[in-house]
């Protein structure tokens, strides 16, 4: 009761808000066990599927005859299936799990009637499964970034509604006040997503919506999915995990607050950059470019805050799996944001638009930033749900190796191939066909890199399964790469 009894000043709130008796915390963790394990384990299955689909798509780009005679596995269906499984299967479900667990802890409330959350998760996945089957069967909407048919999307939204309602109720019934910065981000994420998803589907469905406005709405929704829903969940997680593991409050609460408000104001306005140079009014693109530039305030505040919080504790990257994954994600966030800003500028965009650069950016946000932070969160949360610690630090290390080096290499290849293709095509004398032949070489590297990622995921999946079977180290002390204190002796 220490935190509740004293009236905390704003700067100490951050540290104290998560500091309440261990027994109460254990009871709250226990109340989240069912739904959070459900979301995590289902997310893992979708991650496995995404890994396989991504590998097929990558191979097809350099070996176009690979599985080409099976209509369900042609590149034009595999690719949208991959991006949708990655986004709505792996990323969204793992995000819901992390958001629930964080909200229960930060709002200091137990989860009641967990069956509602599981029902929501089932609805979401039934809709998604039907949507993915439709895409593979050639029955998508045909609208890029919004491929899942409206019927499936409606089922997903119903399920999402149940999950979000229950999550927001935790906030409503909180016994911890004022709210921690992570809670702000989570509430924003939960409230934004369904409306963007529903609006984009409505724009596709409603008569009288002019052709390109459908594309604009889909681009807007896809950008918001990445820059609001995924980014907010991952930042909330990083703002919780980093201070928690290194045992020190966030450097500046005011900075975090400025960051949040610039984020919520500007990130939702950046979507039209996806159609830069296209047949939409120029002012919409200009607005989105301006918002991307103003978002720099958010990038700087978050980066400065996380870096200053970590200051003096960088050795934790060597010890703690949670910090290694989460901090990798935080660095990827800074990189993704800065690259996103520069590539939104018209002079840069006209060279890089339509190249693999855009694909690289998608993976920077969805994989190198978001997924890495979520991996870190799963390494932190799972032991608290199953009652034992991760079995092997070498397995965690291998997972990191595959995800960080494999994923990093893939993104580097895509960035480089995008820049090189874009610059080659800036010469009107260059033959398009010949430039594309050169870019095939990069695709081979991408398959190698993605195989490393797949290996990492395989090991992570096994390790996760062992945890579900309660095969691990005895609970209490977290599994570390190296015991803390060893580094200092060198």
């Amino acid at each position: 009761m220490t935190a509740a009894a004293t009236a905390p000043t704003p700067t100490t709130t951050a540290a104290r808000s998560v500091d309440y008796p261990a027994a109460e915390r254990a009871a709250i963790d226990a109340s989240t066990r069912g739904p959070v394990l459900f979301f995590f384990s289902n997310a893992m299955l979708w991650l496995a599927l995404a890994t396989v689909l991504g590998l097929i798509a990558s191979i097809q780009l350099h070996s176009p005859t690979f599985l080409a005679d099976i209509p369900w596995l042609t590149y034009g269906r595999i690719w949208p299936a991959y991006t949708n499984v990655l986004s709505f299967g792996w990323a969204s479900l793992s995000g819901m799990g992390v958001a629930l667990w964080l909200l229960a802890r930060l709002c200091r409330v137990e989860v009641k009637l967990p069956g509602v959350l599981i029902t929501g998760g089932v609805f979401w996945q039934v809709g998604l499964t039907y949507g993915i089957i439709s895409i593979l069967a050639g029955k998508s909407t045909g609208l890029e970034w919004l491929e899942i048919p409206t019927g499936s999307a409606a089922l997903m939204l119903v399920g999402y509604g149940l999950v979000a309602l229950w999550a927001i109720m935790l906030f409503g019934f909180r016994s911890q006040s004022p709210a921690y910065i992570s809670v702000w981000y989570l509430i924003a994420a939960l409230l934004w997503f369904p409306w963007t998803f529903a609006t984009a589907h409505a724009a596709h469905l409603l008569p009288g919506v002019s052709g390109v406005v459908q594309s604009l709405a889909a681009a807007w929704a896809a950008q918001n999915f990445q820059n609001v829903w995924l980014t907010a969940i991952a930042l909330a997680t990083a703002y919780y995990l980093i201070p928690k593991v290194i045992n020190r409050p966030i450097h500046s609460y005011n900075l975090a607050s400025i960051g949040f408000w610039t984020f919520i104001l500007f990130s939702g306005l950046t979507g039209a950059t996806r159609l830069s140079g296209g047949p939409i009014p120029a002012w919409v693109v200009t607005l989105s470019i301006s918002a991307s530039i103003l978002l720099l305030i958010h990038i700087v505040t978050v980066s400065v805050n996380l870096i200053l919080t970590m200051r003096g504790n960088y050795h934790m990257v060597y010890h703690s799996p949670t910090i290694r994954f989460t901090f990798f994600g935080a660095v990827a966030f800074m990189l993704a944001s800065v690259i996103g800003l520069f590539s939104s500028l018209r002079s840069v965009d006209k060279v890089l638009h339509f190249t693999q650069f855009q694909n690289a950016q998608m993976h920077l946000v969805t994989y190198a930033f978001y997924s890495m932070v979520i991996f870190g969160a799963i390494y932190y949360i799972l032991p608290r749900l199953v009652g034992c610690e991760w079995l092997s630090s070498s397995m965690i290390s291998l997972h990191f190796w595959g995800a960080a080096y494999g994923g990093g290499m893939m993104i580097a290849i895509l960035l480089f191939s995008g820049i090189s293709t874009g610059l080659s095509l800036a010469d009107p004398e260059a033959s398009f066909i010949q430039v594309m032949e050169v870019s095939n070489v990069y695709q081979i590297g991408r398959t190698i890199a993605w195989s490393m990622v797949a290996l990492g995921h395989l090991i992570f999946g096994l390790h996760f399964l062992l945890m579900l079977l309660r095969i691990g180290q005895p609970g209490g002390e977290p599994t570390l790469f190296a015991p803390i204190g060893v580094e200092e002796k060198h």
Partner: protein
Amino acid sequence: MNRTTSLLTGIIGSFALSVYALVIVPQQQLGGLQPQFTDDEGKIVDISPIENDGIVKAGRAVYASEGCIYCHSQQVRDEQNGLDIERGWGVRRTVARDYIFDNPPFLGSSRLGPDLSNVGSAKWRNEPENEDADHKPAKRNAKWHLLHLYNPRVIVSDSNMPSYRYLFTKRKISGQRSIEALDVPVEDGYEIVPKPEAKNLVGYLLTLDKSHPLKEVKSTAPAVAAK
């Protein structure tokens, strides 16, 4: 309570601003777009664009179903935004009016293959203008497109486009060889013919031409006569 109210107001307000600026206002601006009617002394002589019916509609369904959009865009940018026009993919940039009947529009965001906005136009090219004559492919007619769909590497040796052999059938020749049969090696007594999907898709590709003059955009080439 105060902070909660401002938090929720901020979240809802920022969402409202976002949807208003990026969806509602563009829809108000573009939602009422009509085809351009050209009249000659009170008689309408030309309408552009026209509705997607018949083979265009059927072909668009195949285009969507096979996911052509993930490698081929259908938007030509102006000279300030890239070299689409110099590359021979169009004579003018495409504008919102070009897409008013497209549900959904196939704008595309990736070009692993060339832009197809005007692939049905005789002027469309994907090779530099000064390329040696022997590198120039034949005229891109229905026969060319069908063969290219069946096996792109027969025409472009290093193409990374998938083959769409499943849009064709191999069948026993009964009587005369079909005039639709492809010129590809096949065992004796058999022929490869396109399924309706392949014919619809090619029919659609051949109609793709977003170069019709529109009053809101200047064309770099002399105006093409209405079809």
